[in-house]
């Protein structure tokens, strides 16, 4: 599947990725009694310099996708090409080198920073690991630069995380990701825990940094308004599958998959005049368990347009319009 524009070779190419977690029983002799199919056959490309949004509800596999690309999980099946190299099967040593190029920003700025470490030490640790700026004085200088780059007072290097607000901590998390000069950052719900007024500050910061350092982001989020603002392309996940993928405005203005339509319609718009005229037809039921996903199309039990065949045949992603991919046999 090649949907990247000809001028830009993809930075990340995911092919047929599966991540199944075993469910085991027994303490001494454990045996597998089932598996959670968190990611179940995903193809995805991330172009150099773009922000790809990965959206979906809890349990859809979006975080597991991110963790696989970071190689925090070893995928069950499939390939992940990062800049041409398949990283799905890389060994420990080569992974260390890879991690200098790929970084991550987590959701919760409270639990992703070590409470016993000063900010300065949090930021210099990745540099020590990767042998960047071995000279201590130069390293401290870089810590101060990173802090001011992320909109913090350089003197924050002497503070502990608990002395800072949530927004300030998230800035430290961003500075830590930048410390090793990466080219690709996975942002896993990076602004979800922040208050509205702080969220906008961090979104702007992420955009400025992307332009300044020519970064590529995988932006994993459930907040569709944030995604629309930040991303060039969006992939929608449901129960371990990508069900739709398109350019950002195309996806929002012209959603094709019934799940994407329901998801977009469920988000109320901050405008009472628009909302007064709009009726919401909420999707019935709930997301089935990934331990025992429905046969055929995983969305068919909740789908308003499902036909009998949807229970048997799993639809593949098809390009219905240029760059707009949909996994549904009933649209197009």
């Amino acid at each position, binding site marked *: 599947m090649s949907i990247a524009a000809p001028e830009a070779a993809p930075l990340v190419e995911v092919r047929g990725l599966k991540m199944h977690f075993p469910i085991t029983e027994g303490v001494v002799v454990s045996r597998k009694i089932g598996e959670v199919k968190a990611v179940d056959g995903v193809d995805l490309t991330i172009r150099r310099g773009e922000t790809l949004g990965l959206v979906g509800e809890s349990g859809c596999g979006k975080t597991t996708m991110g963790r696989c690309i970071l190689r925090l999980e070893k995928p069950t099946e499939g390939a992940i090409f990062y800049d041409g190299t398949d990283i799905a099967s890389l060994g420990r040593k080569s992974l260390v080198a890879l991690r200098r190029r790929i970084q991550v920003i987590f959701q919760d700025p409270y639990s992703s920073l070590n409470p016993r470490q000063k900010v300065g030490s949090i930021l210099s640790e990745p540099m020590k690991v990767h042998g960047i700026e071995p000279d201590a004085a130069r390293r401290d200088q870089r810590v101060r630069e990173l802090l001011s780059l992320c909109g913090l007072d350089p003197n924050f290097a002497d503070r502990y995380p608990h002395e800072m607000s949530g927004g300030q901590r998230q800035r430290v998390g961003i500075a830590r990701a930048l410390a090793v000069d990466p080219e690709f950052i996975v942002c896993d719900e990076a602004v979800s825990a922040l208050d509205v007024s702080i969220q906008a500050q961090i979104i702007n910061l992420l955009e400025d940094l992307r332009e300044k350092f020519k970064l590529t982001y995988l932006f994993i989020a459930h907040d569709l*308004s944030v995604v629309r603002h930040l991303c060039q392309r969006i992939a929608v996940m449901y129960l371990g599958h990508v069900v739709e993928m398109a350019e950002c405005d195309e996806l929002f203005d012209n959603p094709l998959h019934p799940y994407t339509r329901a998801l977009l319609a469920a988000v109320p718009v901050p405008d009472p005049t628009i909302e007064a005229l709009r009726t919401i037809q909420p999707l019935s039921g709930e997301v089935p368990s990934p331990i025992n996903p429905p046969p055929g199309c995983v969305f068919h039990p909740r789908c308003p347009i499902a036909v009998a065949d949807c229970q048997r045949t799993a639809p593949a992603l098809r390009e219905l319009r240029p760059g707009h991919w949909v996994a549904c046999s009933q649209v197009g």
Partner: protein
Amino acid sequence: MIDTPVRARYQRRPWEETESVPPLLEVRNLRTEFRTGAGLVRAVDGISYAVDAGETVAVVGESGSGKSVGALSILRLIPSPPGRIAGGEVIFNGRDLMRLSDAEMREVRGGEIGMVFQEPMTSLNPVLSIGRQITETIEQHRGVDREAAAARALELLGLVGIADPQRRLKQYPHQLSGGMRQRVMIAIALACEPKLIIADEPTTALDVTIQAQILELMQSLTHRLGVALIVITHNLGIVARYAHRVNVMYAGRIVESGSAAAIYHAPRHPYTMALLKSVPRPDRPRQARLDPIEGSPPDLTRLGKGCAFRPRCRFAIERCASETPPLEPVGETGQSAACFRSHDVALTADRAA
């Protein structure tokens, strides 16, 4: 300044026109404080508002703005110590809740006023069946026997859209999904036919499609049963869709209050205006960078004189540092704002609209 069609948008709702009927709930100058290691925190610092019968009022604000504490204070659910309701009146149905005995207050909670909290897993008892938790409330407040209570419980589960209610009644909270648990919470809140339900971030822990199910359900039930609703949220989309009236809170005070249309289309407080401008919109292609509110919310232990929003405010003048602006009616749109410069805010906001 405002032409006629625009003014029509702000017209008061039918139930607001009958001036003689007193509101269902009237909060007057409510103050709640907490003693903390860092000093005294005035979490709610003199808020006043009213809720009419059948009306949905949203309270919006960011973390620490006092929106939850304000609602819990109405129910007198503030842990003491360290908390204390320092003053004010809450007139509900003609009685001041602050003057009731503890026993009388227990009758009100879950009886005349229902409650729905954010995290249904922690607000339901894990060792009691769903059925028992509903019947307990009914027996407590209605003094009916078990059989009648059980019949009512079954009816309530059907009302909140739970399929196969007979089986669900025998189940325990951990056997239900998050959305289902929140439906049970709503059933319990409705059990004794309350006149008011207070919902504190009722869908924050839920996914968007489940959030839509729960909110549409709450809206249709409150309309049908004529129940007033106070919904506390930080989500401006939810407010726009479901609220008739809105109170915007900042640092323990209501800074702006009015109809949803007025608040969104003609904000009169700089915080409201900035808040609305800072959120990305799901229905519009991105235009430019977001326009965030610089700085962070104030530390409530170090709140000095004057307006708490002043350090982040584009409109701040010298007077804002020495005097705290009161919440006063502004302009023709029927809302109130606590800002000395609300007229200048109005000019800016209307020009932008």
